[in-house]
Every structure is written in structure tokens, then in C-alpha cells.
């Protein structure tokens, strides 16, 4: 593994820190975009970017399995569902408007700044983090570790999670099932709409 030597050597030169800041500098604007972009569908796509950068952070933290799951489940699965939901609902209604409810803006910014300050101050004030010194490079691949844990100590929560997913699936299907009556009078309405439009 000649080539790997270089990578491990580079890893010691605090590249990790630089990567972290680059990822953070991508994640924060994207997160702002998610909240503030006037086009909701666009903010849906930006959310994918946020998740991708967070997956990058996971890779930095040596959590390869979680990073990959993040890409697989969050980055692609959940966000795509969100984007599709956005496209199915009428996103045009909102574009061009201020995405925020005006009455809440002041309060919300106050609360969010407060939350950040609280968390940050509590982080700073904590003196004795129970840090461990084991280098995680020498450990077995974390996918094995996770698998072992899920099958032994955490078997019960694991099962519960699967039941939760099943329940969510069934619930979602029940909720979003279209009632057949609602489609009945769509035809004449459509006709009206076509008649009324420009036929250029």
C-alpha cells in the first residue's frame, strides 16, 4: 500500500481541520438557502446539498457507514420525496412571495440566536469531556461494530424501529390514498380551463 502512505501522512497534517471548514462553509449557506430561498423547490435541492455536506462531515469523523447511509437515505431518498411533494403541491403559489410569515420573524430570529448562544455557551463551559484516546484507525471497520451492536445490545430498539417504519409506511399510504370521488368532476373543469386559455 505505497499510495496509502501518502494519504495517511496527509491526514496528520491537519487537513481534517481545513476540510471541516470548507464543508461548514458550504453547509451554512446551503442551510440558509433552504430556509430563505423564495423558490421552495430550489430550497428542496439545496437541502440535498446540506445533507451531502453532513455526509462529508461523517466521513471526516470516520463514520463511513453512516455517511453512506446519509447519502443513500437522506440525500437521495427523503429529499427526493420532499421535492416530489413540492412539485405535486402548488409551489407556484408561494414563489415571489416572502417565504417567511412576517409576524414571526423577529421572535424566530431571537429564539434561534438564543438557542445557538445557549448551546455554544454550554459547550464552552463544559470542562471535563470524557474523551478517549484510542485512535479509531486501528479499530475494526465501524460497519462491523454497528452490525454487532444492532444484533446484540440494541436488538430490541432495532425491531421497534422496523415496526415504526412499517407503521409509517402504512400510515402514509392510508393518508395519501386518493378518494375516487374527488376525481369525478375534474373533466368538465379542465374543459373550462382549456377554453379559457390562450391558444397561441
Amino acid at each position, binding site marked *: 500500500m505505497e499510495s496509502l502512505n501518502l494519504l495517511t501522512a496527509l491526514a496528520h*497534517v491537519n*487537513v*481534517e*481541520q*481545513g476540510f471541516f*471548514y*470548507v464543508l*461548514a462553509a458550504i453547509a*451554512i*449557506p446551503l442551510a*440558509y438557502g*433552504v*430556509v430563505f430561498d423564495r423558490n*421552495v423547490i430550489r*430550497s428542496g435541492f439545496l*437541502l440535498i446539498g446540506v445533507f451531502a455536506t*453532513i455526509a462529508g462531515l461523517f466521513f471526516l469523523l470516520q463514520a463511513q457507514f*453512516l455517511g453512506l447511509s*446519509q447519502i443513500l*437515505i*437522506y440525500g437521495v431518498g*427523503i429529499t427526493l420525496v420532499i421535492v416530489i*411533494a413540492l412539485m*405535486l*403541491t*402548488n409551489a407556484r*403559489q*408561494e414563489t415571489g*412571495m*416572502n*417565504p*417567511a*410569515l*412576517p*409576524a*414571526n*420573524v423577529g421572535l*424566530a*430570529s431571537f429564539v*434561534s440566536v438564543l438557542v*445557538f448562544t445557549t*448551546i455554544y455557551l454550554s*459547550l464552552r463551559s463544559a470542562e471535563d*469531556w*470524557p*474523551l478517549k484516546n*484510542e485512535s479509531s484507525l486501528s*479499530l475494526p471497520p465501524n460497519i462491523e*461494530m*454497528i452490525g454487532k451492536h*444492532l444484533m446484540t445490545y*440494541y436488538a430490541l430498539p432495532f425491531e421497534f424501529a422496523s415496526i415504526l*417504519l412499517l*407503521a*409509517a*409506511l402504512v*400510515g*402514509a*399510504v392510508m*393518508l395519501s390514498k386518493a378518494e375516487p370521488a374527488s376525481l369525478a368532476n375534474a373533466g368538465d373543469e379542465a374543459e373550462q380551463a382549456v377554453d379559457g386559455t390562450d391558444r397561441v
Partner: protein
Amino acid sequence: MKDSKASCRPEEARDEADGGLNMISRASIHVVAYATAAVAITVLFLGGQLGQWIELAGLSVSRADQIGFLALVVMGLVSCSFGGSRLGVMITGTIAAFIVLTAHQELAMVRYLSLGAVLFAIGIYGMTVSRNAIRMLMSIELMINAANINFVAFAHWVDPLHIRGQLFAIFVLTVAAAEAVVGLAIVLALYRNMSTVNMEKFNLLKW
């Protein structure tokens, strides 16, 4: 076509009506943002000196940090020029504040936790403020992810042997998936009945 525009108008009118408080909050955001932007520019210009000062103060800062500063501020400025004035300034300000608050930290873990806090705060803001129900759901996802960063960071530094934080993150992932699915189904069902996803219109349970 005209009707839909007319339907927007009352909201805009109300926008102006209770703009008093709004204006103040906007102004305060401007002040904060410009202040942090100024700090960021100072960091940019000082470059190496800042690192020396920090080292003089007994803290250590590596070369990579300085490169990080530079990249960040440049990116902030770029996003500023892209994203229009106010948002750009806010982004730059946040990034700059984030760097200033975390760059001199001894513990790398605190950086990650702080980033989690930033994203969490943004998520809270979005969740409180969003007009669109789906955007609200997205903000919740953002918050959940911010929490996940913390879990993984703790797993890396506090519990590297049994990476239990990662396990917890997996469970969070599962729950988030379920939440997203059910939430979106509810929003779609609401949309089918009310034909809008505007949170202001969801007032069936008035009291």
C-alpha cells in the same frame, strides 16, 4: 390569473401593516450581520497576525486554520455577491462568526458541536417562520441532521470503541425517515382538501 394575484395582495398589505416590529428585527439583523461581516473582513486582512496573536495568548492555531479562514471568507463574499445583499451578508456573518468562535478551540469536537448548533438554530428559525408546510418539514430535517452531527462527533471522540453515538444516529435516521413520510403524507392530504400548503390557511382547529 388576476385572481391569484389578488389573493396574494391582502397578505402583502398585512405585511406592511405590522411592519413596525418587523422593521426593528430586520434592522437588528442588519446590524448583527454587518458587524460580523466586519469581523470577517478583519480576519481576512489580518491573516497571519491573528494566528500569532492567538499563539501569543497561549493557544495554538495551525496553518490549516488560516487557509480555512481565507477560503471561508472568500466563499462568504462569493455567496454575498450571488445571493443578494441581505442574505449574503447574513451568510457571511454567520460563517465569520462561526470561524471566530471555533477556530481557536483546543478540542476539535467543539467545532463539530458548534456547527451542529448553527444548523440547529437555522432549522429552528425556518421551522418557526416558514409559510410553506413542506419547507417547515425540511427545516425539521435540518434540525435532526444537526443533532446527528453531535451524535457522530461524540461517537468519534467520547466513545470510539463502541461508537454508540453512530448507532443512535442510525435510529434517528430511521425515525426521521418515518417522520418525513408521514409528515409529507399529511401535507399532501391537507393539500388535497385545502388546495394549499400555506401554513396560515391551516386553521381548522381554531380554538
